[in-house]
């Protein structure tokens, strides 16, 4: 009984962690290669979800809608990079934080004007029920799909970064930008491509999480902060760090929310436990980040030696 509960929460943690990874991977690449803090990353996640909801209701097919939303968001991301963000690479971090903070405000209002505050997006009919993983263990089939897609996307990204020519350039750019430039890598085009990939990954996460959370204005803001926690824990610029950080944060957050109140209840009087449990659970990932940064100020897997 208790074992099944723990397994279920572990799967939820894995699912949340993989979605976090899709956001954090793009964020860490953009930061690692372009030395750019992009707060508007969460806005691309929101745009991806709204585009997916629109395409799903237009085509009547969840899969087709999501498949259309990903390239559309990637194109928007590349357009954004070429028109605006490119001007910010040479600026200090403060300017980048503020300009992309401004973009969050602009995107939020633009989405509100075009679509309104929220859109309905339901999981596909065929995946609405639970499946029996083994006797006595039921689990949401849609969440299983998320885990599968998240793992596939993570694998694809790993292949892209570790095994292909463009991935080699990305790694070269992340570890030493000037040297990569000097060796003749076409950096401006590389930046645009990386930004497009990052935006596409945002759309995958936004579209898949849409039915579980909600497709609404501002949905990208809280998850963006968690994604930042992930890349800081993992080491900024490292895709491997982003993967490990995502899984740690996903697990710690999910397990903490599920079991801390119970654990506190075992030791504390019920009144105190019911207040302290959820409070501690909600700050757990930030505490984790503070501890890791105190011990390893460059994160777990620093990209630059």
């Amino acid at each position, binding site marked *: 009984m208790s074992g099944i509960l723990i397994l279920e929460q572990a799967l939820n943690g894995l699912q949340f962690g993989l979605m976090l990874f899709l956001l954090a991977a793009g964020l860490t690449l953009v*930061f690692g290669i372009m030395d750019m*803090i992009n707060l508007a990353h969460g806005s691309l996640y929101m745009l991806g979800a709204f585009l997916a909801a629109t395409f799903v209701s237009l085509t009547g097919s969840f899969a087709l809608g999501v498949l259309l939303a990903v390239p559309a968001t990637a194109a928007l991301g590349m357009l954004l990079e070429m028109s*605006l963000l490119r*001007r910010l690479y040479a*600026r200090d*971090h*403060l*300017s980048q*934080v*503020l*300009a992309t*903070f*401004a*973009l*969050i*405000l*602009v995107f*939020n*209002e*633009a989405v*509100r*004007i075009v679509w309104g505050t929220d859109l309905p997006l339901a999981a596909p009919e065929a995946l609405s029920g639970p499946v029996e993983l083994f006797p006595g263990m039921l689990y949401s089939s849609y969440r299983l799909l998320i885990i599968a897609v998240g793992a596939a996307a993570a694998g694809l990204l790993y292949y892209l970064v570790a095994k292909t020519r463009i991935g080699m350039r990305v790694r070269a750019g992340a570890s030493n930008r000037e040297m990569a430039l000097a060796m003749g890598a076409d950096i401006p085009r590389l930046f645009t491509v990386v930004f497009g990939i990052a935006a596409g990954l945002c759309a995958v996460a936004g579209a898949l999480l849409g039915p579980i959370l909600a497709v609404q204005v501002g949905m990208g*803001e809280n998850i963006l*902060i968690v994604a*930042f*926690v992930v890349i*800081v824990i993992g080491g*900024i610029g490292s895709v491997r760090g982003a993967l490990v950080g995502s899984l740690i944060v996903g697990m710690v957050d999910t397990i903490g929310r599920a079991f801390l109140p119970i654990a506190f209840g075992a030791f504390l009087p019920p009144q105190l436990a019911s*207040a302290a449990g*959820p*409070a501690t659970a*909600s*700050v757990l990932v*930030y*505490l984790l*980040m*503070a501890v890791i*940064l*105190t011990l390893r*100020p*460059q*994160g777990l897997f620093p990209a630059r030696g």
Partner: protein
Amino acid sequence: MARLRPGAVVLGLVVAAALAFPFVMRAEGDAYYLSFASRILIYALAATSLNLVLGYGGMISFGHAAFVGTGAYVSSILLAEGVASAWIGWPAAIAASALAALAIGAVSLRTRGVYFIMITLAFAQMTYFLVNSMKAYGGDEGLTLPARARVGGGIDLDDAQTFYYVALAALAAALVALHRLAHSRFGRVIRAIRENETRAEAIGFPVYRYKLVCFVIAGAAAGLAGALLASHGKYVNPSVLHWTQSGSLMVMVIIGGVGSLWGGALGATALLGLEDLVANHRVAWVAALLPNYPQHAGLAVGLVLLAVVLFAPQGIAGLLARRPR
């Protein structure tokens, strides 16, 4: 560093205008704008305190709302528990925010660059979630206060005009303090650290301690702003600690002028003024393009901020000083 040095005439005019404002508003019979002006003064104080860290100290703190919020909540909780005196509530708010800044700064200042930005942001989110879970004091619904704090001595803060002057006095004190601080030995060391931390360290200054003291002073001033803010609205909720609030304070500092004495005050006036302008003053040709535009004040703020970052990085103070870099 372009710094605005208003001549004595300009300074005198600004002070006279600020002092005369409530009388003009009373003649106009306008209660809304007197209260609105008090809000601007309070945000000006908060932004000025952030400017000490951000502009003078060069520390890009993305969690300043934590200190404003701590001050707001400590003073509100005292009020809700029946401690009505501002002489207890406000110093307690200042002390609590200073302590929070000491704790957060002690850990955060060990990191550099983008890690510092992110860890201050994370700590602010922590305080946000902690306050959200304080069910005894309203949780996510916030806390409504029975009344504003009591000062005594015939000063009634519930009177809008009196409150305005108290807020003005707090801002004036902060500006004088910042001016003195910036020209003291401490201020020079802080700016030396901003310009070149390694060199300051090599000369022999205890860099970490200087930065921490700077961070704590700013946190304390933000705590006073928070206490004033809570008393002003007679209401406080967790959104005062939300990270977008930290972002707004940074926006004020940048729009006003980073590292300029008047930057925080100018920026708070510009940002809140712009929001009010969009929300409450209908312009026919904009309404023809976008009928519900007063609901989308964020769009205007976002576009203005983008323009400032791209084209006028020294902010309003930089434009006024007209000293091209």
